[in-house]
C-alpha cells in the first residue's frame, strides 16, 4: 500500500515542475534573451506579491476552504499605506497598522466561518466587497509614495545588485523567507498537520481530537496576514497605492495553487507547489509579451486550460487511489 501511495502524492507537483521547465524551454528556443538570468529574476520581482498571497491561499485551500478577499486586502493595504505616508505618518507605522488590520480581518473571517458554520466562499466574498469598498473610502484615486525615507531605504539599500540591470529586490527575499517558513509550518508542526487532517476529513479530524475551530481560525488569520503582507510588498513594488488594483487577483492565486498541485477539495498538496504555480503563470505571461504579436488575452486562455488539465489529473489520481484502497 505504502509503496503505491508514496509516488502518487508527488505526481501533481512533479507535473507542475515539468510544466515550468517545458514553458521555460519553449521560451528559450523561441526568443532571444529569454534565457537571460534577468528574465528569471524578474519573474520573482514581478510576482512576489502574488506568491505571498498564494501562500495564504494554499493553506486555506488545504483546509478545504477558500479565500476570495485576497485581492481586495492587497488593494486596501496598499492605498492605506500610501494615504498614511502622504498625510505625514511614518512609513513603518503605516506598514505595521496595515499588517495588523490584515491579521484581524483574517481572524474575523475565520471566526465567522467556524462559529456560524458559514461557507467560506460566502464569508470571504462578503469580505472581498467590504474591504474593496473600504479602500475607496481611504482614497478614490491612486496615491504615489514619493521621497519616503523608509521606502527609499528598502529600494536602494536593501537591494542586492547582481550585475547590470539585475537587482535582487528586498521583496523577493521577503517572499522566499515567508515561503520557507510556510513550508516548514505546514510540514513540520502539529498545527500544520492539523490543516491537512481537517482538509482530508473534517469529521474524522474532530473525532481524533484535533482542535478544528482553532486551526481553521488560525489558517484564515495567516491568510489575512499573507494578503496584507502582499499588499505591503505591492506598495513597495509600485511605490504607490491604488484602490482599483488587483481586482480578481485571488483567482490568480487560486489558479497558482491548483497548478501547484493542491487539491481544491483540501487535504492534498504542498505549499511549495504554489511557488511553481506562480512561476508558471508569470512565465506564460512573459512568453506572450516576448512574442508581442498574438493577443495578450491568450495568457488567460492558456492558464484556463492548464487549471483544467490539473483538475482532471487530480480527479484521476483521487479515483485511482480510491480504487486501489478498495481492492486491497
Amino acid at each position: 500500500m505504502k509503496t503505491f501511495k508514496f509516488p502518487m502524492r508527488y505526481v501533481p507537483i512533479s507535473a507542475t515542475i515539468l510544466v515550468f521547465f517545458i514553458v521555460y524551454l519553449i521560451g528559450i528556443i523561441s526568443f532571444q534573451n529569454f534565457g537571460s538570468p534577468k528574465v528569471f529574476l524578474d519573474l520573482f520581482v514581478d510576482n512576489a506579491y502574488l506568491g505571498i498571497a498564494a501562500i495564504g491561499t494554499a493553506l486555506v485551500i488545504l483546509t478545504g476552504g477558500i479565500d476570495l478577499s485576497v485581492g481586495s486586502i492587497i488593494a486596501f493595504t496598499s492605498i492605506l499605506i500610501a494615504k498614511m505616508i502622504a498625510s505625514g505618518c511614518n512609513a513603518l507605522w503605516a506598514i505595521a497598522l496595515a499588517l495588523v488590520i490584515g491579521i484581524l480581518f483574517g481572524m474575523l473571517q475565520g471566526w465567522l466561518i467556524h462559529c456560524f458554520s458559514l461557507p467560506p466562499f460566502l464569508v470571504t466574498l462578503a469580505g472581498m466587497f467590504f474591504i474593496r469598498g473600504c479602500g475607496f473610502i481611504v482614497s478614490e484615486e491612486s496615491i504615489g509614495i514619493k521621497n519616503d525615507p523608509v521606502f527609499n531605504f528598502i529600494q536602494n539599500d536593501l537591494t542586492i545588485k547582481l550585475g547590470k540591470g539585475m537587482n535582487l529586490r528586498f521583496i523577493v527575499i521577503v517572499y522566499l523567507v515567508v515561503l520557507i517558513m510556510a513550508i516548514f509550518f505546514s510540514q513540520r508542526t502539529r498545527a500544520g498537520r492539523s490543516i491537512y487532517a481537517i482538509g482530508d476529513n473534517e469529521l474524522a479530524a474532530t473525532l481524533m481530537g484535533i482542535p478544528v475551530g482553532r486551526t481553521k481560525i488560525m489558517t484564515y488569520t495567516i491568510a489575512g496576514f499573507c494578503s496584507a503582507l502582499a499588499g505591503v510588498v505591492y506598495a513597495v513594488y509600485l511605490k504607490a497605492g491604488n484602490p482599483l488594483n488587483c481586482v480578481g487577483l485571488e483567482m490568480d492565486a487560486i489558479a497558482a495553487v491548483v497548478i501547484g498541485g493542491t487539491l481544491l477539495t483540501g487535504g492534498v498538496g504542498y505549499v511549495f507547489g504554489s511557488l511553481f504555480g506562480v512561476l508558471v503563470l508569470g512565465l506564460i505571461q512573459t512568453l506572450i509579451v516576448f512574442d508581442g504579436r498574438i493577443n495578450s488575452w491568450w495568457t488567460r486562455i492558456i492558464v484556463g486550460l492548464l487549471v483544467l488539465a490539473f483538475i482532471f489529473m487530480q480527479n484521476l489520481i483521487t479515483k485511482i487511489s480510491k480504487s486501489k484502497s478498495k481492492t486491497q
Partner: protein
Amino acid sequence: MNKFATVIMAVAAATLLVTGCSKSDSSKIKVGFSQVGAESDWRKASTESIKGEAAKRENIELTFSDAQQKQENQIKAIRNFISKGVDVISFSPVVATGFEDVLKEAKEAGIPVVLFDRAVDVSEDGLYVSFIGSDFVEEGRRAARWVLENVGENANVAELVGTVGSAPAIDRKKGFEEIIKDHPGIKIIKSQSGDFTRAKGKEVMESFLKSPEADQIQVLFAHNDDMALGAIQAIEEAGKKPGKDIIIISIDGVKTMFEAILAGKANCTVECNPLIGAQLFDVVEKIHAGETVPARIPSQEGVFDSKNITQEVVDGRKY
C-alpha cells in the same frame, strides 16, 4: 502518469505553435508598446492605428502587449521589454502613479521611453524622453475660439462637463474659460456633469431646458461627442432645432458626430485624435537616429464644422 505528461506536452506544443519562432532582425528598430486595454472605441482605434502603422513601416518591429486595464500587467510587460532588449519602449499608462521604478530600470538599461496619450506622475525628470498625446487644455481653447469666430462676442453658453475629476474634464473646462475670460460677452450660464455618456448628457440637457434660463441658452459646449449627441435628442424632444436654435460644439470627432454636423443638427467638433500611430513612429525613428525630440508633442488634431465636413470625410472616418 505518462498520460498526464502527454496532455501537458500537447498543451506545450500548442503554445509553441501559437507563439511560433520569431527571429529578430537587427536592422529593424525594435519597439515595445504596452496599451491600456480595449475599453472604448476610441482606445481600439488607437490600437489599430499603432499596429497598422507599424505594419506599414518596414524598419519597425513592434512588440505589442495589452495590459487588460491592469497596472500589474503593464509593469510586467515593460520589464519584459527591457529584458527582451527592445530599442524604444512606449506605453499608455493605466494610471499615473507607480511607474517610477520600472522607468528607472529602463533608463539604466539605456532604453528611451515615449509616453503615449497619457502622462505619468514621477518625482524625477529624465525618466522618459517624450510625451505624445492630446492637449486637453488646447482642445478647450479651440472650442472657445470657434465660438468667438462663428457666434460672436455675445453668447450665453450651457456646458456639459465630463466625468468630475478626470483630466480631460478639468483641462477642457480650463482651456475654454481661459479664452472667454477676455470676452465678457460670452457667459457660461449653466454647467453640470454629464459623465461623458450619451444617456447622462441627454438627462442633464433636459434639466437645462426646463430651467428658467432655458430660453437664454444660445450655445451648448459639451466636453465630448457622446454627451452632445444625447443633448441633441433632448433639444429635439423639447421642440427646438439643434444646430440652429442652439449652436452645438463638442470635442472628440467621432463618426456619428460628423454625421450630425452634416445633417445640420450640430455645428462643430474639436478633434481628439486616437490615430497618432504615425506620429509615434516618426518620433521613434528620430530617437533611434540620435536626434533630439521635444519633451511634449501634441497630437495632430483638427477642428471640424460644416465648412470642412463632407460625405467623403464622414465615410473615411474610422471610429
